């Protein structure tokens, strides 16, 4: 039974070197994935989630992230359907998955450095092939994440004083996808989702002396909106496939309750108009062992508005990613290590908002990944390790070195399959 695409029937190519490499990579990955456990940093995400709407989560599971986050053109497997709904049309088995993303960030600015750690569940998805090339999905995914906390100690009139900022929460989406394949070469899909989530933002000024009262401001923002994504994928030839998607601009209603030490609680409503997002990807497969992809995803963040007002500092973000997979042999061999697919990727990921000084923030990510079959064809644990660099101390005010893991657990069952 084939679990993922590109594991086509073929003759096994046993190799002791591949086995050793896989074992070393496995240990390296699993060691890195436990980073949040052995680092003693505070619980926080990217420090650049101090800006804008927080960190935009690159969607996908550990398999896609092992290949730089590429997968728009990965026909014939479940993973690609998480980012391109058209790829649901190529499903053969019912799949259930969830993905976790633990990460450790070494962050530094001009004065301090620190290690931050966090872990989050990125998505949960159920993909169902209904037969005759039709597939549906139901998933819950995280779209954005705010987990920024920082403080600065100073004095006012000889009194020790601590300034604190905290931004937490994020946006999520529950969505339903529907896709159909036409002639096993053309795939068309649609995904509609309900966007929701809560973010909070608090600032406080705390005097060390207990005689002083501390000032507070707190914003509680709740969001609701809908998002639609259309996808397309084409098998151009036996080796080439292409995929694309577009998420048109959509509105999210934001209800904010703001309370502070200074005024009574204020409730405000506003409309966040998220910009259009679209992407294009190509995939190449060489036999049963090698595959490679390239994806380009653009989000027109410069068009983001709040109550029709352009937000200063937002800029268009073009994410470029390349990646590939190597699998020594197909699943029917008795060598476990040689059935493990190995993945490699790179992503260039600019931040969608400039710093307050107008500097751009860019990120570079190198990714490694593998898939560990649980049993012969039943389930797989995909894992990916991402090493990233984002920002710059001199221009962006801070830099973070990211060690990020992705873990996806996929289970497959032949539901709705007709017996021959």
């Amino acid at each position, binding site marked *: 039974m084939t679990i993922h695409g590109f594991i086509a029937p073929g003759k096994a190519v046993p190799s002791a070197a591949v086995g050793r490499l896989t074992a070393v990579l496995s240990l390296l990955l699993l060691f890195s*994935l*436990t980073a*949040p*456990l052995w680092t003693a*940093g*505070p*619980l926080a995400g990217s*420090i*650049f989630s*101090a800006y804008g709407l927080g960190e935009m989560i690159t969607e996908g599971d550990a398999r896609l992230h092992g290949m730089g986050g590429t997968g728009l053109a990965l026909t014939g497997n479940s993973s690609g359907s998480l980012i391109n709904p058209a790829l649901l049309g190529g499903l053969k088995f019912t799949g259930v998955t969830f993905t*976790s993303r*633990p990460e450790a960030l070494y*962050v*530094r*600015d001009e*004065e*301090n*450095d*620190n290690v*931050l*750690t966090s*872990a989050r569940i990125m998505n949960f998805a159920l993909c169902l092939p209904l037969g005759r090339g039709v597939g549906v999905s139901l998933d819950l995914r995280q779209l954005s994440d705010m987990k*920024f906390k*920082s*403080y*600065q*100690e100073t004095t*006012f*009139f000889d*009194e020790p*004083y601590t*300034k*604190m*900022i905290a931004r937490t929460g994020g946006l999520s989406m529950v969505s339903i996808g529907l896709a159909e394949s036409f002639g096993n070469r053309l795939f068309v899909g649609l995904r509609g989702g309900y966007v929701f989530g809560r973010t909070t933002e608090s*600032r406080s*000024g705390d*005097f060390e*002396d207990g*005689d*002083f*009262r*501390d*000032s507070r401001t707190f914003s509680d923002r709740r969001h609701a909106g809908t998002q639609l994504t259309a996808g397309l994928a084409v098998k151009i030839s036996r080796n080439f496939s292409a995929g694309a998607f577009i998420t048109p601009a959509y509105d999210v209603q934001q209800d904010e309750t703001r309370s*502070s030490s*200074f*005024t009574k609680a204020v409730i405000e409503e506003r409309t966040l108009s998220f910009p259009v997002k679209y992407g294009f990807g190509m995939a190449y497969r060489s036999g049963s062992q090698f595959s490679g992809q390239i994806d380009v995803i653009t989000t027109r963040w410069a068009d983001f508005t709040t109550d029709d007002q352009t937000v200063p500092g937002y800029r268009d973000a073009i994410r470029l990613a390349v990646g590939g997979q190597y699998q020594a042999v197909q699943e029917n061999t*008795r*060598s*476990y290590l040689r059935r493990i697919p190995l993945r490699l990727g790179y992503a260039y990921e600019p931040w969608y908002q400039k*710093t*307050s*000084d107008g500097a751009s923030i860019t990120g570079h990510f190198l990714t490694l990944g593998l898939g*560990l079959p*649980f*049993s012969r064809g039943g389930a797989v*644990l995909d894992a990916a390790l991402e090493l990233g660099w984002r920002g710059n101390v001199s221009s962006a*005010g*801070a830099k973070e070195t990211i060690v990020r893991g992705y*873990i996806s*657990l996929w289970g497959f069952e032949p539901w709705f399959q007709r017996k021959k």
Partner: protein
Amino acid sequence: MFTGKRYQNVQNVWLIGLSLIIMAGGCSEKAKNPVGFGLWDDEGHWQVHQLVSQTVLADSSFHVSRGTGIGPYLLVGSYEGQEARSLLSFEEGLPDTLDRPLTAVTLNLIAYSQVSDDSILISAYPLHTPWSDSSATWESPWTTAGGDYEADPIAEGYFATAGGLQFQIELNTAGVELVQGWLDGQPNYGIMLKSNEQEDDHLKYFYSEDTPYYPYLQMIFTSQDSADTIMVDSKKDTFIAEPVPLPGEDLLLVSDGHVARTWLQFDISAIPESSFINLAMLSLSVSEFRDPLDNMSIRAYPVSDRHTLSYETSPSATANLFPGRELVEFNITTLAQDWVTGTENLGILLRPYLEYSSLSQVLFYSSSADSAHRPSLKIVYTIRPEDALASCRGKQGAR
């Protein structure tokens, strides 16, 4: 080694367990993070300023003429030249019918504390003038300041706490006749307790009728073959204290016994509206402090009417005084916040925590004193972020 089915199952369990552990990792709050604070270009949230105001719109002291009947103590003796006398009445609870003669009467009181362990001679005198515990003062309602009383005492006795806290003196023949007269329906104005040893700081505190240790008379009625004893509790008592003159304009007075209060009003109009008050500390320099018990508690109340100087029932702050303290501070942060957010600033009133309970007094320097000693109100406040940002933008636009 990787092909056994048993090993496969063990590996599956291990992988699932590892996944769960990793997902749980980082889910607990840890230390704070100092990195990246500079990314937040929003100093408007921490615009802390300080105002030290010595601009006093009003400061004055005034006496409150009211009886001390609500206090828990009866004071007898003197302290720092100020004398206190106690008044006791035993009108209620006297027996109606008498079939035996009254042969002996003793006055019983329980002491609370004393200034010194020295013994003091306390004398009891019959009073001539009717009085009320809610209005009797040193001057009123007497024809002679300090009370209208018989020249000769009806009882005398030395008291020192070394001998126990109970003070019991037996009334002499004139005293027994006085009480017999009360029983016979003659005018009953009670008795006064005073000490004639005013040259020393001898002051005694006895519990009043408002406490469980109230004073009482013990009356003994005797016939040929038996004697009956009746206890009569004091239902009305108070003490009166020699007046303390108000000080000159460079000092402010807060005193107990002969009660004086002080009113202070500062100008804080320089603080922007909607500012958040982090701290408002009223500081008063002590010129002179005295208290028989070496401890005085003063409370600050918001004034609610500037003409009558009536004040709110809940105090804004409390400060304690003790010998050697040169500066007294009142944390009136909440009150200052109310003033900034719209409550009219009518000033604050300083009074002893328990008025009519001692002979304590404190003199503070007033606004007429030199700048090092005059009252000051230090206010640390944070400007509302929106106002701070608007101010910054205004400055930037002016460049």
